[in-house]
Structures are given as structure tokens and as C-alpha cells.
């Protein structure tokens, strides 16, 4: 009996220790990013362009702008399609085709991001004969799609069907009912789904390697290559120069902060704008 109790306690202690140890890498990573990242961040970091190794005062303004451009393109590509697709499978939930789409979306979500890069390379980069912000944005957009579809569907599924009937019974058309009653009622879930999907792709590098490609200069043209924070971190961290490493730390800090802020924002949106039925 005594042995069983000791064994039980031991088991619990091991579980607690292992669980806590798992957070160690996180603490280490965050600690280093904050320590080394903040050290290399100053005003010029945000407004200047990268400098050749050896020179100081370089910044990552091109990558910050590029990340922004890529996310906007990704959003344009994915939000409408994702929300409509999610609405479709929630509206026709019992149809065979919805089942098929749902399965596709789940498989979609598991496609390695590098494969998405290959696809967009074949679809966009090859025909246009150039790397471009457009292709990078579409690659990120494809990665956002499944998340938006799923969050839209899950949100709409929770909206009572009587709401739709009430609107139809007032003589509203189907489209009006969807646009003015159903989607607004689900806006918190849909919006937080979009935010989460942005935070997921903001740090993606692999699909950009052969689409957006990277660009050490400022670029506003969506048909030309752009840089992005993750691409810059990749290129700089693989370089042998310590100055570039510290720029990469700074960029990591900015990127992580952006992603964490997006996550917090998501929680706020889904709580604050929650529709009470």
C-alpha cells in the first residue's frame, strides 16, 4: 500500500517536472530575443535600409513594409474566398459536397508550407518570369484559407437557425439575410479567425523563398520581389557576420511582438464582440 502511494506521488511529480521543463525552451528563446533584440533596436532600425556588413545604422524598413504588403495581398486573396467557402459548408452542412470540402480543407491545412511555395512558383512566378510580392502574398493567402474557412464555419454553426428564419419571415431575401443578419452575428468569430490566420502566416518563410524571394531595397511594386521579416531573419542569421546576427535578433523581436499582439487582439475581439443570442 505504502509503495503504491509513493509511486503515485512520484508519478505526479514527474508529470509536473516534465511539464514545467517543456516551457524552458520558450523562456530561453524569449529571453534571448528580448535581450538581444531590444539591444539592436532603435529608431534607425525601423526607418533605414539594410547596410552592408561592417557598417552600422542599418535597418529593416524594407522588410517591415514587405511583410505588410504581403499580408495585405494574402488578405485580399483569402478573406472573401475563405468566408464564402466557410459559409457554404455551414449552409449546406448535410450535403456530400460540403463533407468533401471540409475534408479538403483539413488536408489543405496540413500541406507543408514549402509545397505551397512550389505551387505558387509554378502558378505565378513561372508565367510572369519573375519573383514578386504578388506571388508571395498569394502563397501566404493559400495558407490562410483553411483557417478562415474553418473558423467561419465553426462560428456560423453556432448561430441559431431561428435567426435566419426570422429574417426570411420578414420577407428579406436570402442574400440580405446572410449579409445583414447571419454574418454580422458571427462577426467576432470570423474576424478573430482572420486575425489568427494572419498571425500564423506572418512568420512564414518557406513559402516565400521562391515567391517573394527577398529584396534589400524598398519596393512598393507588387510585381517585384519584396523582403519580409522572416526572410530577412533567415538570410541574416545564415550569414557569418555578428552585426547581421544582431539585426536578425532585432527583427525577431519585432516579428514576435507583432505576432503576440495579434494573438492578444484576437482574444479581445472574440470576447468583446461576442454576440449574445
Amino acid at each position, binding site marked *: 500500500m505504502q509503495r*503504491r502511494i509513493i*509511486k*503515485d506521488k512520484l*508519478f*505526479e511529480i514527474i*508529470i509536473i*517536472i*516534465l*511539464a*514545467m521543463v*517543456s*516551457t524552458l525552451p*520558450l523562456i530561453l*528563446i524569449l529571453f*534571448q*530575443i528580448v535581450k538581444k533584440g531590444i539591444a539592436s533596436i532603435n529608431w534607425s532600425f525601423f526607418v533605414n535600409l539594410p547596410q552592408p556588413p561592417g557598417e552600422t545604422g542599418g535597418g529593416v524598413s524594407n522588410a517591415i513594409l514587405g511583410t505588410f504588403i504581403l499580408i495585405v495581398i494574402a488578405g485580399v486573396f483569402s478573406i472573401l*474566398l475563405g468566408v*464564402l*467557402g466557410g*459559409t*457554404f459548408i455551414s449552409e*449546406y452542412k448535410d450535403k456530400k*459536397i*460540403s463533407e*468533401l*470540402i471540409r*475534408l*479538403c480543407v*483539413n*488536408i489543405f491545412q*496540413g*500541406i*507543408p*508550407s*514549402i*509545397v*505551397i*511555395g*512550389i*505551387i505558387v512558383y*509554378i*502558378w505565378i512566378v513561372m508565367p510572369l518570369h519573375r519573383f514578386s510580392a504578388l506571388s508571395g502574398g498569394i502563397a501566404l493567402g*493559400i495558407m490562410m*484559407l483553411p483557417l478562415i474557412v474553418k473558423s467561419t464555419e*465553426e462560428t456560423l454553426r453556432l448561430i441559431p437557425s431561428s435567426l435566419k428564419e426570422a429574417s426570411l419571415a420578414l420577407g428579406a431575401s436570402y442574400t440580405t439575410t446572410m449579409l445583414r443578419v447571419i454574418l454580422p452575428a458571427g462577426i467576432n468569430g470570423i474576424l478573430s479567425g482572420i486575425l489568427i490566420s494572419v*498571425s500564423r502566416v*506572418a*512568420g512564414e*518563410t*518557406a513559402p516565400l*523563398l*521562391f515567391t517573394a*524571394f527577398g529584396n534589400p531595397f524598398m519596393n512598393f511594386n507588387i510585381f517585384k520581389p519584396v523582403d519580409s521579416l*522572416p526572410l530577412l*531573419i*533567415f538570410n541574416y*542569421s545564415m550569414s557569418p557576420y555578428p552585426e547581421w546576427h544582431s539585426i536578425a535578433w532585432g527583427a*525577431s523581436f519585432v516579428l*514576435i511582438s507583432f505576432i503576440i499582439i495579434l*494573438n492578444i487582439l484576437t482574444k479581445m475581439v472574440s470576447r468583446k464582440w461576442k454576440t449574445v443570442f
Partner: protein
Amino acid sequence: MLFGAGILLLLLLTGIFFTLLIGSIPAIKASGIKFLSGTSWNPVTGVYGAVPFVIGTLLTSFLALFISLPFSFSISLFLGEYFKKGALAEFLNYATDILASIPSVIYGFWGLLFLVPIVRKFELSFHILPYGVGIFTASLILAVMIIPYTSYLAKEVILLVPQDIKEAAYSLGATRSEVIRKVIVPYSRSGIFAGILLSLGRALGETMAVTMVIGNSNLIPGSIFSPGNTMASVIANEFTEATNDVHLSALIELGLLLFIITGIINFIGNIIIKKLSIKG
């Protein structure tokens, strides 16, 4: 319009598959079945055998899974059984959340500057060739990266175990650890398995972090401390520098292989999850 969007989603996925398939044709014509059985990959001589990368991929992924399991299992029990609420649970929840949202390129960067030197020291003290980078380092990073996924799904299924069957076991005099091993784990076995499958899917396709620390060697790894390459990392390394059409096509074929493997794994994982009706 809704219907159109639905169809478009279907077309997109089938489009991806067929694009990869068509893109692979030149390589399939050039190498045929040797692509899957060849042990050498040399773009200069035009020899494309994927075996080193398949081995590299499987080795890193399974090693990572093996390393991460005790940890993710502990987290899921911690959050799903021992401490469902409280400050520590809250902390652990947040921590795994953030762990899941750190970009893989940052994991790679951190691995390069922090983990690689440690592994190198370790290798020196054991008289192994001190590369620092290699399969083992990549597996360590991957392990950290997949912990949040496995533990999340496992926690969800553990929470689904009905209270009354746990209580029935307690009332028979079982201790908590016995309830966990004899009741909770058997009950949530298939869900935990699905979680492991989905994490495996992620690990197989993970690119950046692996590419940065695996050492990028196209030879079959001699041990877990040798440098190597995974399917994803070799694509990342060689795609923009592909010397000719067959080389590019061979890389696309690797992508197709990766797509099929992860597709099957995700398919099975999702079917299990759907049966259990938990949110994936």
C-alpha cells in the same frame, strides 16, 4: 456565389495535386522508379535518388516525436487531469500557445546560435565528430516545435473522459496514477494517437528550422549526429538554384512525395478526430 467559393476550394486542392504531378513528369521520365530507390542525389551528374532525404525526413521526425512525447504527454496530463485551473495551468496554457506561434525561422535562428554550440560540446565530450549541426540538432528543435500540437490534442481528449468512469475506478481504490494508466489513457488512446499523427505531419513538412540546423548534406546520414537533409530542406536549398529542368522537376517530385505522405497522415488523423468529435 457560395457554391462557387466551395467549388473553388475543391479546385484549389485538386489543382495543387495535379500541378505537382505534372511538374514531376520530367523527373519521373528521367529517373523513374530509381527516384524512390536511389541512394545518391547529384544534380551535376543528373542522378536523383531521394532515399537520403526520405531517411533524413523520417529520422528527424520520429526522433523528434520520441523526444517530445514524454513532455507533451506530461503537459496534457497536467492540464487535462491534475491542474485544470490555477495560475500554473494558466501559465502553461499561455506558454504552449506562444510556443505554437513562434515562427519556425526563429526556432532555426535560436537553434543555430544556442543549440548548435551546446550539441557541439556534447559531441566533443563523447568523441563524436563535432559538427554541431545535424539530424540530432534538427530533431531537438522539431521536438520543441511539435510539443504544443501533441499536447493540445491529447489534453482535449483527456478532458473528454467522463467523470463517472474515473470515479468508478477511484471507488475501487485505485490511485490517481493508476486511474491515469488504466482508465484515462486507454479511454483517450485514439485521440492521443491522432494528435501524434498530426504532429508527425507537421514535423515531416517542417522546413525552415530544419534547414538551418541540419547541416545540408546529400549523403545518407551515418548516425543521428551526422549532417543530413530532409525532403523539405533540400527543396528549400536547391529550388532557386536548380540547374536544369530535370533538377527542378526532381525537386517538385520531392514536393509531391511530401504532399502525398502528409496528406495521408492528415487524412487519417482527421478521420479519427472527427469520430471523436473534438475541435482540431
